């Protein structure tokens, strides 16, 4: 009798990957969507059972084909992996379940099976990145998920998505190729691709130049994928012109997985081994994080298009995660990692509400948004709730991450005071752009020509799931025990490599 639990790490990747080509064969209307949603929920169930296993004190190590670790391909699932797996599978399931009507209106019925197959490949690729324990598999899965996500982003009717996807493709491929150069240089010096083995072998060759160059290439490559501040230019257009459901999915998880790889690589392989790398990591990434927070939020304040506003807000939130990681302390890492979870909830709820608005409004800019709350009170309510979590109002999930971030910054003395000012400034700017939306939707009279377009609320299934996401943002702000346990365990294990 096969013990299913031991094979869960492999199943997490294989279930979406093997069922993706089968979805292409499902031609009848709506069947492709149903199959994709079912597979996504199955992946979510696997992630939840992996979580329960990890919280019960387990660490899943899996060897593909029973080849022992440095020679064979190993998979590893620990607290950090499981947190990101939950985010990926939950984001995919929520986006699929909520946005059926939105997807039906944006993608022609004949192309839907291909679109949904690409969706499952993105899920498989992202889950693969997270469970893989060796560097080259991370590259392969990173490219699988990226290529499939280019298909997703280009899937909608808006033709401006095409130049956006081209830019995303070029920048994403350059990022992945830099990462490939980095692991090639490491392989040249250590002879291994397995992360744990690298950690041991890199001691002897630590200060030689190829390793330093490799660290640089890997950091920049992953920063390109993660949309860290100056390399974020592909993100706003890609999120704005993608189909609304795709924005919900990608905004919640795509860049976070690249940050996951960055943190794993830095803390497991580089930090303890390179003289002064701790300072280099923080000194290099902290200013970029600060700039991301300030500039991302500032641009969002002046942006007229709703989706692009929240895309720039995402750039700022990635800055928060990176700020937490670059503080290299227990509190800081916990803050950064738990923000991965909280931001996914908040942005998921916000982009779902935007998708609800898109079902009734012709354009998603402030002119058409005026007075929308009169006709769509529930949608705007969910949007405001998600926005409160972005700002970090106490009681919402966003507050937990900001709190830990402030506590981590307090440990740093004068630099910490500056960082606290940056964090507060970021929250204030988020307050400004959320207030802009609230003022336009609730307090402005609808213009004459746009009034006729809004005809009632969004479809009920979409609304229910949007509110579920927004309320879970509230729930995890009041009862953060599970994500907090996972984040602290993750931070502890990452810092444990530093000893």
């Amino acid at each position, binding site marked *: 009798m096969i013990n299913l639990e031991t094979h869960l790490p492999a199943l997490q990747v294989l279930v979406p990957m093997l069922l993706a080509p089968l979805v292409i064969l499902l031609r009848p209307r709506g069947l492709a969507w149903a199959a994709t949603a079912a597979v996504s929920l199955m992946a979510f169930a696997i992630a939840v059972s992996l979580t329960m296993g990890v919280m019960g004190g387990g660490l899943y190590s899996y060897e593909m084909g029973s080849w022992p670790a440095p020679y064979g391909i190993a998979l590893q699932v620990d607290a950090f992996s499981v947190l990101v797996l939950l985010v990926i599978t939950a984001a995919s399931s929520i986006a699929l379940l909520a946005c059926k009507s939105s997807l039906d209106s944006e993608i022609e019925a004949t192309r839907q099976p291909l679109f949904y197959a690409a969706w499952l490949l993105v899920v498989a690729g992202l889950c693969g990145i997270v469970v893989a324990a060796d560097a*080259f598999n991370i*590259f*392969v899965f990173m*490219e699988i998920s990226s*290529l499939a996500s*280019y*298909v997703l982003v*280009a899937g909608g009717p808006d*033709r*401006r998505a*095409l*130049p956006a*996807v*081209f830019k995303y*493709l*070029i920048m994403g*491929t*350059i990022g*992945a*190729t830099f990462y*490939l*150069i980095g692991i*090639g240089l490491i*392989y*040249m010096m250590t002879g291994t691709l397995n992360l744990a083995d690298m950690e041991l072998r890199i001691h002897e060759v630590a200060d030689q130049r190829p390793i330093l160059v490799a660290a640089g290439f890997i950091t920049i490559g992953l920063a390109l994928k993660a949309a860290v501040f100056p390399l974020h230019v592909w993100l706003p257009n890609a999120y704005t012109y993608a189909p609304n459901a795709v924005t919900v999915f990608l905004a919640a998880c795509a860049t976070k997985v690249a940050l996951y790889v960055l943190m794993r690589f830095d803390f497991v392989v580089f930090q303890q081994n390179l003289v002064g790398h701790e300072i280099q990591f923080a000194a290099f990434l902290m200013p970029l994080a600060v700039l991301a927070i300030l500039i991302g939020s500032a641009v969002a304040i002046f942006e007229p298009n709703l989706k692009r506003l929240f895309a720039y807000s995402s750039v700022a939130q990635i800055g928060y995660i990176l700020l937490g990681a670059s503080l290299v302390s227990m509190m800081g890492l916990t803050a950064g990692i738990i923000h991965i979870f909280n931001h996914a909830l908040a942005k998921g709820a916000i982009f779902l509400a935007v998708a609800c608005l898109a079902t009734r409004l012709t354009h998603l800019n402030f002119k058409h948004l005026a007075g929308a709350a009169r006709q769509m009170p529930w949608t705007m309510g969910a949007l405001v709730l998600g926005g409160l979590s972005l700002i970090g109002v106490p009681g919402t999930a966003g507050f937990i991450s900001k709190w830990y971030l402030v506590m981590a910054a307090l440990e740093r003395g004068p630099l910490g005071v500056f960082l606290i000012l940056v964090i507060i400034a970021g929250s204030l700017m988020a307050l400004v752009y959320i207030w802009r939306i609230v003022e336009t939707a609730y307090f402005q009279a609808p213009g004459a020509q746009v009034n006729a377009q809004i005809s009632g609320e969004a479809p009920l299934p979409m609304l229910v799931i949007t509110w579920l996401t927004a309320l879970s943002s509230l729930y995890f702000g009041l009862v953060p025990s599970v994500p907090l346990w996972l984040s602290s365990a993750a931070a502890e294990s990452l810092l444990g490599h530093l000893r």
Partner: protein
Amino acid sequence: MELLGLYYYWIFAALLMIGFYAVIAKLNLIKKLIGLSLFQSAVFLLYITMGKVSDGTAPIFQDGLTDQVFSNPLPQVLILTAIVVGISTTALGLGVVVRIEEEYGTIEENEIREIDRQ
């Protein structure tokens, strides 16, 4: 002389930068994709170079040969995978360019930006 002996790496660096320059500086989308292909080919060269062992031959077992020095087969396998990834990326990129041509009527980046601005 040591520096000239490392000419494989100079070629890698030159190809990398030529490809990167093409991606950044050229306005025609097809030329950008060609640059991307050059960029990736440079990385393949890096891996193959590092896999070659002095006096090493192709890593295939043969009957009767006992003391043979083989080149490292692992980089070659990694590069096969990376080549496939590169082909998929180029194919997808070209598909996007075909669609851009259908929608915009041009494949020059500045003209596309002009059309979108209106």
